[in-house]
């Protein structure tokens, strides 16, 4: 049974981050995803200290607030003349450091394992189950991720054309009266949410891999936005299965193996994509020369 829950958790992480990652990659905001995933850290610790439990709602709210705060700060610094990459670097390392500091200060009172936050403990998701009236409803992580996925799918499909236009041509979007900033923060809010929900399973560092790597591979595999989302989720799910298999065989970190598998799939796409792969490009050039 534990296999099933671990894989289901992984698949849900892949789906949430695959959808959002597509938009991050297209908007050239991969590093913003990284920044958010690190910046939610103090939010999680503070929520944990306030509530004394890992119960999710407060944690979710606090982490989202932190993620959006980070996005807001990055934007603010950028507008005031700090270089884009420098402001990302400043904001997320600072917020992450505050999180690390808080954990180290209060780790003894609250059972919050720094390693678990950084690297995730997907192997243990089935231990932390949701019990209502004595009935075991399955791992909390699965519920949390399931709800997050439903929200992401609902928001993206309702406002697909807005997200698409804001990604491709924000100037026209704004001229059409689409509130570009609102959709920006909506996307960032969802990234924060997905990060927090994925946290327990893959950890703060590797969730970025799930956000960006499958989407970057998908970018090489298709010329349509809709298909890019499908591929991105598909590559993510494939990485979960392949990574878990390898992890079991080697008795190694599951999250580490999953992201390594995603990276391997990215390299495959990079080399062998029929449209954008370097092998195909070489062949086309050779054909032209002949």
């Amino acid at each position, binding site marked *: 049974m534990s296999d099933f829950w671990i894989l289901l958790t992984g698949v849900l992480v892949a789906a949430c981050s695959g959808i959002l990652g597509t938009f991050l990659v*297209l908007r*050239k905001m991969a590093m913003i995803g990284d920044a958010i995933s690190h910046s939610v850290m103090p939010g999680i610790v503070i929520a944990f200290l306030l509530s004394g439990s890992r119960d999710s709602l407060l944690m979710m709210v606090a982490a989202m607030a932190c993620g959006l705060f980070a996005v807001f700060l990055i934007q603010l610094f950028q507008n005031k*003349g700090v270089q884009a990459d420098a402001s990302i670097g400043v904001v997320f390392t600072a917020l992450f450091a505050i999180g690390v500091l808080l954990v180290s200060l209060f780790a003894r009172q609250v059972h919050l394992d720094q390693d678990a936050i950084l690297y995730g403990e997907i192997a243990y998701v089935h231990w932390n189950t949701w019990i209502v009236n004595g009935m075991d409803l399955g791992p909390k992580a699965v519920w949390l991720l399931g709800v997050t996925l439903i929200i992401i799918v609902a928001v993206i499909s*309702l406002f*697909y*054309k*807005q997200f*698409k*236009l804001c*990604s*491709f*041509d924000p*100037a*026209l*979007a*704004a*001229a*059409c*009266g*689409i509130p570009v900033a609102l959709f920006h923060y909506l996307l960032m809010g969802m990234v924060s949410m997905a990060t927090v929900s994925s946290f327990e399973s893959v950890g703060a560092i590797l969730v970025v891999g799930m956000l960006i790597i499958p989407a970057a591979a998908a*970018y090489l595999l*298709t*010329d*349509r*936005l809709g*298909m*890019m989302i499908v591929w991105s989720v598909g590559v993510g799910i494939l990485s979960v299965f392949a990574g878990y298999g390898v992890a079991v065989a080697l008795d190694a970190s599951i999250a580490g193996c999953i992201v390594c598998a995603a990276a391997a799939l990215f390299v495959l796409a990079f080399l062998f994509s029929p449209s954008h792969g370097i092998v195909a490009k070489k062949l086309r050039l050779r054909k032209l020369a002949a």
Partner: protein
Amino acid sequence: MSSAKVQSEASVMERGDVVSPLTVSGLSAAYQKKPVLRGVTFTVTEGELIGVIGPNGAGKSTMMKAALGLIPRLGGEVLVYGKPYKQQRKLVGYVPQRESVDWDFPTNALDVVMMGRYGHLGLFGRPGAKERAIAMECLAKVGMADFAARQISQLSGGQQQRVFLARALAQDASLYFMDEPFAGVDAATEKAIITLLQELKQQGKTVIVVHHDLATVEEYFDSVLLLNVELVAYGPTKDVFTQELLQHTYGGRLAFLERNSLAKTDNKKG
């Protein structure tokens, strides 16, 4: 140089109580506290092609963006057919500079043109068969029907510009802002674009174009707006596109211009 003086008084009279497509008064804008547009005032005549001319950094793009609310205004008012722009969005079409978007975006030409319909679809509306048909029609008008399914990065610069124009047509607006539609296109595309602009004009639409090639100004535009942070002059091309006013607009750089494009212009006149 007073701007209001040149703005044709005759055209104001002729219009009578017809509402102008665009009335800009005292429009100012700045990037990082440095003013790039100061107190620009003009009223556009319906059904004209209007060229916006000025040196680099004169605020031509900024003026369009400020009028469309894409960047914050420091001051001033913009009325589209007598009402604030926010109430008139559907009447306005916008063609940004081609470099402003990522042409590697995973989408095809038809899809980009369909984006021109998004403003008409409301909050939850989805583009469907009707939007697809309109988009195909618009692609055909710019001679790009055969490229509908082509990934946009596979198009040449001129073809990309045509796709942008097709998208503007799909917006089905009455007033168009076009930011350098002629930049970096070949002669065939330039011809296609100007033909299209003239068709729009014949349908009674008003088109405001940021333009760089002084040699074609007299041929293309009914009115000219000379801009260099402040409005230098606005009015019918024959009144405004003069050596003296261009000197004002371009300052010292005109010496170079004189020898090139203007010489050509004068020859034509003579």
